[in-house]
């Protein structure tokens, strides 16, 4: 279990982290989400000792994190970072050995990862000779090659096409299934909704929402209502509704969970033919926006 407690960091007048607190459990994927500049990267760098917080604690299995603990962590930084001119097989072996694996075990692990990534025949290729997507995969492999107990991935999905997002998501699920605690960050909340089981949403260095994704959605006092009525831009007159998007005659509003769905559908049908209607728990973006506006009020 990774516990981050009351992490605080200032750069001059800028508050980067303001009491950030959350935890990550083995076998689960935590989506560490928030807009750009929220403090995600700063928190992750703190876990690896690349940034020293002004205050706060980082614990792994109840003990403060030091170099021996970090040897059991895997890190994929936002800016990536591998030797561009090194052969990828050697590169993976090198990082595995640096994390404390024996040479034999490191070779085995590197071969295993290259096979899993479909790059077994390219072990002798230099990193810079690979496509962008493959470079990203090697980078992920470098973070996971030593079988870490905790994987911390900073924006692993950025720059990937939908297929890439899906296959990386699948890989993270497999990794977590082996008992690894996975924490990944993203500023694109909706893109990764399906990947994470737990979510920690951070804003201005403070955690504004944390918990199991499904539970958060279910317990939300809001629902997302989406409706399209043929030819008619139609606005339902409902108590406490907020329009979240209006496009192509399709309307999306955040409504109270207690709204009578049948009533809304019936009144819509009286205006014209309803071509699309959905009533769902809110998206992560909805939850985030709600949390931020509540935070603003308090």
């Amino acid at each position, binding site marked *: 279990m990774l516990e981050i407690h009351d992490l605080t960091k200032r750069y001059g007048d800028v508050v980067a982290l303001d009491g950030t607190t959350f935890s990550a459990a083995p076998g689960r994927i935590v989506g560490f989400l928030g807009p750009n500049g929220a403090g995600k990267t700063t928190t992750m760098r703190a876990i690896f000792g690349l940034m020293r917080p002004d205050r706060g604690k980082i614990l792994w299995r109840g003990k403060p994190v030091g170099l021996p603990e970090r040897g059991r962590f895997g890190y994929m930084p936002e800016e990536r970072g591998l030797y561009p*001119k090194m052969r990828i097989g050697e590169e993976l072996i090198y990082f595995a050995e640096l994390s404390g694996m024996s040479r034999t075990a490191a070779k085995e692990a590197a071969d295993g990862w290259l096979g899993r990534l479909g790059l077994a025949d390219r072990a002798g290729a230099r990193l810079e000779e690979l496509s962008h997507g493959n470079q990203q995969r090697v980078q992920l492999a470098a973070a996971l090659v030593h079988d870490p107990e905790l994987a911390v991935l900073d924006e692993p999905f950025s720059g990937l096409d939908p297929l890439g997002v899906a296959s990386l998501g699948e890989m993270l699920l497999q990794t977590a299934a082996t008992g690894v605690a996975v924490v990944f960050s993203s500023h694109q909340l909706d893109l990764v909704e399906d990947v994470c089981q737990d979510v920690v949403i951070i804003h201005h260095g403070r955690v504004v929402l944390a918990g199991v994704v499904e539970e958060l959605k279910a317990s939300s006092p809001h629902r997302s209502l989406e409706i399209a009525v043929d030819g008619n831009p139609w606005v339902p007159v409902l108590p406490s509704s907020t329009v979240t998007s209006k496009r192509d005659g399709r309307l999306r509003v955040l409504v109270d969970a207690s709204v009578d769905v049948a009533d809304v559908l019936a009144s819509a049908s009286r205006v014209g033919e309803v071509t699309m209607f959905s009533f769902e728990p809110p998206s992560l973006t909805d939850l985030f926006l709600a949390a931020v506006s509540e935070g603003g009020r308090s």
Partner: protein
Amino acid sequence: MNGSARRQWLVARREWNQRLRTLAFRISTVISVVIVVALILVPDVYGEGANERTVGVVGESSRELPQLVRASGDQLDLSVETRAFADEPAGRAALRSGDVAVLLVDQQRLVWKAEPEEQLQVAVTSAVQVLQRREAIAELDLTPQEAQRLLGAPDLSSASLGSIAQQRSEREELAWIGLLVLFTAIAFYGGFLLVGVVEEKSSRVVEVLLSRLRPSELLAGKILGIGLVGLAQLALVAGSALIALRFSENPTATTTPSTIGWIVIWFILGYGFYSVLYATAGSLVSRQEEAQSIQFPISAILIVAYLLSMQATQSPDGTAALVGSLLPPTAPMVMIVRIAHGSVPLWEIVLSIALITATIYGMIRLAGRIYAGAVLRIGPRLRLREAWRRAEA
């Protein structure tokens, strides 16, 4: 091996494996070996070319002159022939075209193309001297024994004078080669290290590395790894030089083998000193383009050391050479020059090594902290003081 030592060793091994494979390393190794072996062996191939001289003779001259010049040349390891010319203009033309090295006019004057050649001048002068004495002896009407006693002396003194001069010029040459090898190796591998540090920063691989090891471990491993590559190359070149020496019949300074050994030792010390400077400089910048300007102050120190050493080849026992051979930044190069000349008391070498070793130790401690403070910082060039403070925070 404990964790820290193993990590440093892994970093060093990576540097070794990667650098050994580079084209720059292979080409520079081949070129160095070829140049050094050629310097030792090529005079053999061209026979006595380097020691052959022809003296042009014009006007009044004794029939015995050619034989006397040859004899005094032999004493100086020079093979000197004479060639007579009808008049001075013809002799001067031959001098200009390089057919003769010097022109002797009327056994009175020596005409040179440019700078007088010390050795040749001694050879011709002593031959003429012998001739003049013979004439004087003939006029004095002495017995052959008395004449022999008068004539024997100049030959003897001329021989011993010449042999010292010969050794001196060979030692100077050796000092010059040793200096060049050392300067090149330190600048080359120091530059290698700097580029390597900047490469890790600019490719951000340093973040992944430092999540697994301490900055000081990374720094030490890199310095060690690249240093070993340099040492291996130097050992290869030094080994080829020693082998070439065994096959060479050229006269070489008696200090040559020990100087070659000392070059290897002073490379270790010189690289130790300068590598720390280069690595620290590298940690202050984020892009390869900035690497050039950041290494300028270090290159300036190296060049000052080089110039001081050049001066020391002329007066290896002067005060400047003595001080230069003790100060850590200049010691490696100035000391190698003095060692080549064979005139350094052992205690001075020991003191110099002690001073530079202590300095390197202190610098590693300072540099380790600056490196740790600077190496993770991406962006504009850092000031030293800023890096120092960041490490503390």
